[in-house]
């Protein structure tokens, strides 16, 4: 496989994990998409510098970290809030970079766990993760408080996390 083909393969494979990392820093999924786009462009520009004998994710996540921080600093100028500082961002990037195998295993386990939800729970997840979904709009439509709706989602997420852990434990990942 040529170096460029290797780069493209790694680039494609790491997208989900980069998205998760960026989301952990910026929180808003739409913003995470934007930061991921910016990160991808930088990765492309830096492709020639990538040493294909070294793992891709630690290299790529460094650029995601910088792009996410740049985004947070831009946002800070607007609302004077900076959720994550540079030092913490570096720690988070270092730790996330080496979680690739378990990240993939979790993702696969999730598919099974979703099927174990009740139809009502599935429906709620379905609505929550629709593009452009907002908890406020959903709560208004359901005529309940946003916090109450979020609590329902918390319980679902909790059961999914438990299920994923159990699945992975059974598969000897733990």
């Amino acid at each position, binding site marked *: 496989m040529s170096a460029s083909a290797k780069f493209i393969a790694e680039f494609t494979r790491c997208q989900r994990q980069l998205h998760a990392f960026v989301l952990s820093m910026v929180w808003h999924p739409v913003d995470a998409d934007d930061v991921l786009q910016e990160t991808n462009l930088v990765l492309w520009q830096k492709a020639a510098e990538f040493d294909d004998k070294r793992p891709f994710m630690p290299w790529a996540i460094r650029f995601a970290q910088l792009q996410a921080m740049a985004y947070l600093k831009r946002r800070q100028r607007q609302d004077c809030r900076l959720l994550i500082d540079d030092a913490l961002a570096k720690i988070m990037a270092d730790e996330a*970079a080496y979680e690739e195998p378990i990240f993939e295993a979790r993702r696969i386990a999730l598919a099974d766990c979703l099927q174990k939800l009740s139809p009502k729970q599935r429906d709620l997840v379905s609505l929550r993760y629709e593009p452009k979904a907002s908890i406020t709009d959903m709560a208004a439509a359901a005529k309940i408080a946003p916090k109450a709706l979020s609590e329902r989602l918390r319980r679902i997420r909790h059961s999914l996390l438990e299920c994923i852990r159990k699945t992975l434990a059974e598969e000897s990942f733990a």
Partner: protein
Amino acid sequence: MTRANAPLHADFEPAWEQLFNQFADGLATSDDERRLHDLLRDSADARRAYREFVSLHSSLYWDYAAVANHGMPPGGGLESGERGGQWRSRWIAAVVAGLILSGAAAAATVALIAPSLLKRGELAERAAADERAIANPAAAPLATVKNTRFLLVDEHESPLAAGQPIDAGRVSILGGAVELVLRNGVEILLEGPGELELIGELQAFLHAGSAVVRMPKGMHGFRLETANTEVLDLGTEFAVKAAGGVMTDVQVYDGAVLATSKFEGNGGRFPKRLEAGQAVRFSPESPNEPGTLPYEEGRFARRLPVDKAVEHQMPRLSSKQAQTDYLIQQFGQPQQPGIVVSRPAGPMAIDGRLDDWRSAPGFTASLNRDPAAAEWVDGRMMYDDEHLYIAAHVGDPHPLSSSIDPSLDADDGWRGGAVQVRLSTDRSQGWPVNANAPSYYKMRRLVATPQQREAAFNPRLAHLTMWFHAASATPCLTIARGMMIGDLQLNPSGFRAAYTRDADGRGYVMEYAIPWRLLDCETDPPQPGDDLAAAWQVLYSDEGGRLWRTQIIEIRNPDEPPKIFCWERAATWGRAEYR
């Protein structure tokens, strides 16, 4: 930095989970933000829990949104402003296309590709074409026709023949079957009548008919859609049948898939994981849950046979024993169907010692399957990005005695005692390989078709003959390409080899390093996960190293009839699993 032995799951404090949840739903206050910052700064456990939580949130957003919004009708475009999985995958495809373009042109391409303006086929074609043109100007097309059988196509469609390149777009057949190999090694067998739209290396749309998708080992992520279902491969072989635009059957032969209905309904859009041995039907009658079908092994064509083998006719011999002896001498008694070709742990020293080979799996065999025979072999293969490595410890009563002078009789190198390895590096052929030597047809009074003639010249097939010329103490190598075994390259520049004689004089060790460039695949050598073809012959001579007397043949395709020489028919070669 995460340590390798760090726990993979966090012990969740309920308060942490509550906090993370506030963020996930956009309800966090500035106090929550400060708490989160401090928590993450101070506690590695909290960071681990946080990553676990966010990976769930991201997966739901990414995967679930992708699945939930994949209800695109065949040939349909994207809704304006759509976000989520489809949008994202298109964007990635656009960036990939951009990645392989050069300089400003790439920037312009990425900037100009507005996902909402592109239709699926356009983007896929553009990405595929760009990737081909820029990443490797001589690269293969998106797919190649590997084989066909009883193929019937509409008179307005282009005919499909083995070896024919296929670009992104629709492949439509009225009957029979066509087997395609994608550039990345994914194999798709389409049964007619059927129509398959190739979108990219990891995506296709089955408009009608049945298709079996087989992934190379170690690869996953192929997405096969129908009008109402999406099947995501998790490293597998699976079959899909699309009928009438409303019904889709999925059957898993190996590994697992995630199958997701596109029918509107509460639960219908959730992925269903299917394992090997399971089969289901997605239909409007049960939009929330696919119906279970009986698993029928033979329901789909999984591989097309290579052209039917024709065995040699046996000469008239005086006795049954003579017939048996003849068969064993000519065709051996192979037992091993395959060999694992592994990567070395470190740099290889070509010194005629097997110290570097301890971790390499291989095979052992002895003449006539007799463990006490003086003729035996322990054969191994390894590879890296630059070389193919071959080593063998050979039990031989007359070791390293070949009198075949390479400068005079290179084509007879095998006769005085040698090791021959035949191999394919042609990923588009996979395994088994469909190619026969011209003599195969001649000896059987068959007439080769133009495709069969072309297959015999496949430069990615090689026949290596390795021997030690005693008089000059020279390790020798000849390489023949395709199935043209008489057209030899002798001792090409760049190979390295070493031999050592066993202390007891009853055998020898040979070790070769052969650059991939000598096998015409320098830019595209075998990769981990490739299943290709290889065959071994260990030849033994008389004490003078001149007259061939017997041989061990190993690594042979068990589906091929026995009375066929491996030098004349590549389909007889066994499976070489590159790991």
